[in-house]
């Protein structure tokens, strides 16, 4: 770790911004190198996640998991890669060829580029008389959060297009479900961040992390926002318990039913990259990013370590949840998003704004905790009820969207189809 850090540090010193004394060419080369570095790290982490998911799930189910390739099976991803590479690349005749080929790449890309704005460590910067904490990231956009939301918004394309291009009913349903689900949860995702932005006063992720370094993590200020963001992130990454687009029991494998070989591997990798990005975002927005209660002052490597450990924890949480909580029904998923998360997030925004406007800091500490508790109690009650009452799918208003021209209501209302 230390070696890796010193290398980064040297690079960073040489390739600092021209305004801070670096040379233009050096800065450009440095940026490019940084991009390559981050991209590789993300991909490697994604690959490792494949391994760790299998190990952790095995551990949870009292199995052993892959342990043959390399120490503790760590090289298993490499072996998988080889397997994918050499498998036959089937492109069915009925597919929409161009889009079919493009879709896996499209699905991986947004996750990768999101990392451009995530600050992974910090250090003290100087320019003339000025001294400030600088977050290390590829680009400290002042619209960082908007950028993230944009990328989250377009990440749906890969899955949707893949599902459509496959020209099979399971794939199509998976794709349609994915688009509806991700549009829905994008809203709660975005709304959950708003209180954070209100309190920080900036859209830049670097600023948000610095604010948390000075005042404390948003996890403590905004537990409800944290909760909503976390669950919405699960939905956005199509992970269990929200893996509607690929739910095996209903749709075989959803949008990637028709895919094989490296194309399937890319979809696979995209999912894990999304998980990584999601975890990194949760860490950045709510768990202080590279800060660690002042310990980051020990040196930039401490910030990097803190960031990595927190991210790994949330990645572990992803896996933990997957093997613990059963899949939601589609109508439950939609009801949770539209009827609970969005109103709660709006309420949270309102209360936070009120607390900020009235200038009563105590509200900021007490109110969110109470909200979270109330929300959890309500959700618990609802799911207890949902579990006992099994509704027929036809009664669900949204089901009309999936059933083409089937009349809704089934005739229970006495309506005679025209």
């Amino acid at each position, binding site marked *: 770790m230390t070696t890796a850090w010193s290398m980064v540090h040297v690079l960073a010193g040489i390739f600092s911004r021209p*305004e801070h004394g670096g040379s233009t060419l050096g800065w450009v080369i440095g940026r490019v190198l940084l991009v390559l570095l981050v991209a590789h790290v993300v991909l490697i982490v994604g690959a490792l996640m494949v391994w760790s998911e299998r190990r952790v799930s095995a551990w949870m189910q009292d199995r052993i998991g892959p342990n043959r390739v390399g120490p503790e099976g760590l090289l298993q991803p490499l072996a998988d890669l080889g397997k994918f590479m050499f498998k036959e690349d089937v492109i069915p005749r009925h597919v*929409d060829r*161009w*889009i079919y080929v493009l879709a896996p790449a499209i699905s991986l890309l947004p996750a990768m580029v999101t990392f451009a704005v995530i600050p992974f460590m910090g250090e003290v910067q100087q*320019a*003339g008389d*000025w001294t*400030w904490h600088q977050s290390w990231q590829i680009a400290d*956009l*002042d*619209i960082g959060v*908007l*950028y993230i*939301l*944009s*990328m*989250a*918004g*377009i990440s*749906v*394309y890969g899955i*949707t*297009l893949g*599902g*459509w*291009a496959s*020209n099979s009913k399971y794939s*199509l349903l998976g*794709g*349609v479900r994915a*688009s*509806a689900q*991700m*549009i829905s949860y*994008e809203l709660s995702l975005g709304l959950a961040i708003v209180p954070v932005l209100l309190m920080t*006063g*900036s*859209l830049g992720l670097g*600023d948000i992390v610095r604010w948390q370094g000075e005042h404390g993590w948003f996890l403590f200020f905004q537990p409800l926002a944290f909760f909503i963001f976390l669950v919405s992130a699960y939905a956005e990454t199509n992970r269990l318990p929200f893996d509607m687009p690929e739910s095996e029991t209903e749709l075989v494998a959803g949008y990637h039913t028709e895919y094989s070989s490296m194309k399937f591997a890319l979809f696979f990798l995209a999912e894990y990259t999304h998980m990584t990005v999601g975890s990194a975002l949760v860490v950045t927005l709510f768990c202080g990013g590279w800060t660690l209660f002042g310990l980051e002052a020990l040196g930039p490597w401490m910030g990097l370590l803190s960031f990595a450990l927190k991210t790994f924890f949330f990645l572990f949480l992803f896996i933990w949840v997957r093997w613990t909580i059963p899949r939601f029904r589609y109508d439950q998923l939609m009801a949770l998003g539209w009827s609970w998360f969005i109103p709660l997030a709006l309420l949270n925004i309102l209360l936070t704004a009120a607390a900020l406007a009235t200038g009563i800091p105590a509200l900021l500490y007490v109110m969110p905790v109470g909200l979270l508790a109330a929300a959890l109690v309500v959700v618990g009650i609802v799911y207890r009820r949902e579990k006992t009452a099994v509704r027929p799918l036809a009664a669900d208003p949204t089901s*009309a*969207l999936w059933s*083409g021209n089937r*009349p*809704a209501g089934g005739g229970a209302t006495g*309506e005679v189809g025209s």
Partner: protein
Amino acid sequence: MATQVLYILFGGMALGAALLAVTRKNPVASAIWLVVMFFGLAATYVVMEAFFVGAIQILVYAGAIMVLFLFVIMLLDLRQQMLEGKPTTRLRFFGVLAALLFLVVGVVALGDAKDRGLLHRAVTPLPREADIVAANPDATSLVDLPLDGTAGAIADEMFTRWVLPFEVASVILLGAILGAVILTKRRLT
């Protein structure tokens, strides 16, 4: 130099993508090309240093509007609709002619305006961070500095000068939501 090159690159990309979008037979292909156009335009916005607009261009158009389009295309399963009936040749001819005429008239007007010296200004770059620091010796933090085209500056403008239009826009959105819900209800009772 780089700015101009980038502008031409992304602007051309947007234009080409737009042309492809309106000429594809496959609606999904049209939609994808339109997404490409949105990205191209977002990039030109960034080149013009309108970062906020660039970001919401992707967020709103590519992330929401086009997904909705794709969603509807898939919902209606328009694969069969790809072989759409051709409009009468006369109509198509007049349509293209009118559009081209519009372009010609626009370019002529542009040239005319340039001849009259109405276009002497160009899209100017923002002051650099260092310049701003130099120009504001009293500021104690970067956050205090006036930056053009950023989210903060636009927010200042939007919530002071344009707060009424902002609220009106929200009401329009509400109306649109209600309209969409009512229109897509299966039966109005």
